[in-house]
């Protein structure tokens, strides 16, 4: 990157480090921080949407819809953690391939599960065997996002369901007295008021989501954990111009600091949002704000 980097062996410590930190592979490491942020940026709204859908389903008057919503929340929340991540990625992949197999190769007569193998026809493979590398990576990332969204959607659903029930009943009764339909009451009265009750739970969920991002590594994505292990391991002078010993401890220290900083920033921002949302609300927090202002 820098001009003085042409011959690393002659450099002083500081310059050596500057050159080392700007080689191509390091940029893959920096980019993977972006991957984490993108994952968060996509997963958070998707999970919120899933959660909103499931929460409104769990309130539905139509039986099967309600059972589905409640079942989804109960199953995902009741079963332990990363097992779900490992399970969903394979299960979703197989489900997609199975559906495509049924649609694209109707005259395939062999069973799909042959002993230990899962076999679908070539045209149903996801991604297609001849697809370029970036499609494989994007597909893997897409599966990861979907998995995160399903799992965190259930948690968000639980929070939103609680928030919907926390909206004072009198508000809904008033809406009904004004002749609003069930649908109108839901969209115009319930949904706008529930956010202040949901925010503490949702911000907690956001913190949990941040701390769940390193699990991307388990889903086979080349994320920060992957690169930290890869770049930090001992490099011999034979293969690189920048040989060094086992530096993984420093790379993981950097990750630790990154996450701590991210958590701290989120805490501060969420506090601000909470302050703004409670402004003028008939809750203990809003009351405290009113008293402080006087």
């Amino acid at each position: 990157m820098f001009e003085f980097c042409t011959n690393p062996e002659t450099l002083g410590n500081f310059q050596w480090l500057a050159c080392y930190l700007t080689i191509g592979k390091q940029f893959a490491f920096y980019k993977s921080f972006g991957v984490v942020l993108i994952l968060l940026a996509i997963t958070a709204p998707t999970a919120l949407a899933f959660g909103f859908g499931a929460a409104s389903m769990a309130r539905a008057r139509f039986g099967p819809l309600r059972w589905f919503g409640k079942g989804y929340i109960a199953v995902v929340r009741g079963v332990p953690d990363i097992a779900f991540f490992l399970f969903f990625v394979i299960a979703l992949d197989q489900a997609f391939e199975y559906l495509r197999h049924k649609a694209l190769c109707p005259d395939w007569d062999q069973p799909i599960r042959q002993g230990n193998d899962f076999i679908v026809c070539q045209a149903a493979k996801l991604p297609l065997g001849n697809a370029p590398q970036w499609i494989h990576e994007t597909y893997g990332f897409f599966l990861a996002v979907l998995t995160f969204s399903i799992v965190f959607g259930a948690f968000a659903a639980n929070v939103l369901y609680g928030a919907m029930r926390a909206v004072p009943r009198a508000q809904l009764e008033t809406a009904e007295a004004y002749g609003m339909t069930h649908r109108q009451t839901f969209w115009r009265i319930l949904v706008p008021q529930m956010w202040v009750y949901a925010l503490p739970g949702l911000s907690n969920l956001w913190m949990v989501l941040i701390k769940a991002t390193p699990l991307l590594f388990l889903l086979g994505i080349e994320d920060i954990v992957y690169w930290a292990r890869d770049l930090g391991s001992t490099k011999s002078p034979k293969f690189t111009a920048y040989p060094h010993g086992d530096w993984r401890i420093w790379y993981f220290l950097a990750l630790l600091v990154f996450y701590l900083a991210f958590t701290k920033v989120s805490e501060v921002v969420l506090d601000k949002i909470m302050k703004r949302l409670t402004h003028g609300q008939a809750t203990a927090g809003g009351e405290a704000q009113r008293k402080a202002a006087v």
Partner: protein
Amino acid sequence: MSCWETIADYAFRSIGFGERLLPRSDFTVCQQFVLIGSGMLWNIYFGLVALLSGFFFATVVALGKASSNVLLRKPSEWFIFIFRGSPLFIQFFFAYFLFLSLKSVAPFFSPFTSAWLGALVVLFLNTAAYTGEIFYGALLSIPKSDTEAADAYGFSGFSRFKKITWPTMLRLAWPAYTNEAIFLFHATTLVFFSGFPARQQKGDALYYASYFADKTFNPFIPYPILAGYFILLTLVVIGVFGWVNKRLNRHLPQEARRKLRIRPNLIR
């Protein structure tokens, strides 16, 4: 091979007894049940030891954070922030590589690079931080009248802490602490995916479950088995903690007793 033979061969495989080789082909459901169950021994070991030891350290940390002395408060606050603010997964990795480099300096640290001690230390510190925060919250919400009554009876210093403050803190913290315990058992599944090597394929329940899922390309059998084991474990934890909760609340009138609300969390 009958299922009894499988049990004899693999029931204690995860701690190094029985058959040396894992099954490689013709996987039966029985094998999956037995091996994953065998791996649960590690989860129980990690969870139980970390929970018991972390409990006492958490009390110290909570008292430190509630203390008016800056020299006690600041370290406790930082300890809690560092372990609650970063992912456990990264903590495992960091600790493993830290112990690796320490090992090359002092041979004393060589047992720390294996999971049974190294991961245990991380889990101990982690649960101490989470529990410390719970206990700290409980310390703050001890009713003023309780401590005033203690003063009126002439309690002071350590005897006041032992007889009044600490039991009340535990009573208030217990529902949240139950969730933390469940949470910790779930977190133990991360150990063998985070640098700590599973020597001779001696791993925990998730290690074996993913082994089977990888070999059979069929996640629909091993992971539900794993989930079943964990639900059982969670029920046992709830049972034990519910019993303690009853004991802690036994002096209260019926309707004032606080019921346990189980809200397991996902990931730390």
